[in-house]
């Protein structure tokens, strides 16, 4: 599959699954044994674990929206630079809702095979999110 088609797969995962919450998008766009790694926030293997992790974020930020800023693809890899914005209205890893809105940016590196994401590694500004929500100790 051409590198440009792989970009579309990565984009659809953000738009159809993260943003629109289409439950079928996970199986359509990722392999059953997907390795979904949120850099420093842990590794999630397979559809169930990936769904649980993303659902946790979507429940914590019900209006969560990713905007794709830029993509580069080469071979079977795609890097996507994104901005995410959401309001903290649900529990987030034990932190009660702050009702504050945060905007963070990050990069996701996907490996795509036959139109599905096999591995997805996210790096993002968690410190920026914590600062904006006012949940850093001493804040």
């Amino acid at each position: 599959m051409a590198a440009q088609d792989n970009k579309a797969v990565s984009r659809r995962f953000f738009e159809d699954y993260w943003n629109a919450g289409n439950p079928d998008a996970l199986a359509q766009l990722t392999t059953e044994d997907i390795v979904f790694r949120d850099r420093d926030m842990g590794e999630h293997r397979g559809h169930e674990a990936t769904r649980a992790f993303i659902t946790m974020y979507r429940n914590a930020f019900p209006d969560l929206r990713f905007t794709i800023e830029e993509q580069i693809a080469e071979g079977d890899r795609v890097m996507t630079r994104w901005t995410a914005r959401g309001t903290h209205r649900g529990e987030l890893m034990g932190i009660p809702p702050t009702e504050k809105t945060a905007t963070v940016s990050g990069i996701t590196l996907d490996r795509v095979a036959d139109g599905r994401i096999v591995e997805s590694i996210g790096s993002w500004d968690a410190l920026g999110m914590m600062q904006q929500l006012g949940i850093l100790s001493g804040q």
Partner: protein
Amino acid sequence: MSARDAIRQALEAYNRHDAAAVADVFSEDAVVHDPQYPEPLRGKEAIRNDMEAWIRTAPDGKGEIRSLLVEGDTYAFEITMIGTHQGPISTPSGDIEPTGKRIETSLAAFGTIGNDGKIVEERRYYDLVGLAAQLGVTR
């Protein structure tokens, strides 16, 4: 110099702990967005100062390219870094004092090179919260 060569050259310079040579890969008025700082680094000198600070943080630090994707004058990479935490790490919420612990982190970035083959803009992403947790520091 191609974007691929520029990144390789910068990493080799970092692995020799030569901050000036890292800065030489950037244009005089390059802009670097880095989560450690509330405002972007502007210009070669600011970029060199930041690199010197990181070398003081981990004087034995070594980086390795995991992924490097290039499309025209745009690049994206993921680099893993390993070293010993021997100098302070500046963060927007205060310094992390040296712990003597092993640092193992990764840096992802998107960037652009200009006509002269020098980097004109770079956006870096890494998780300072995860790094602080690794060092046993609660932020």
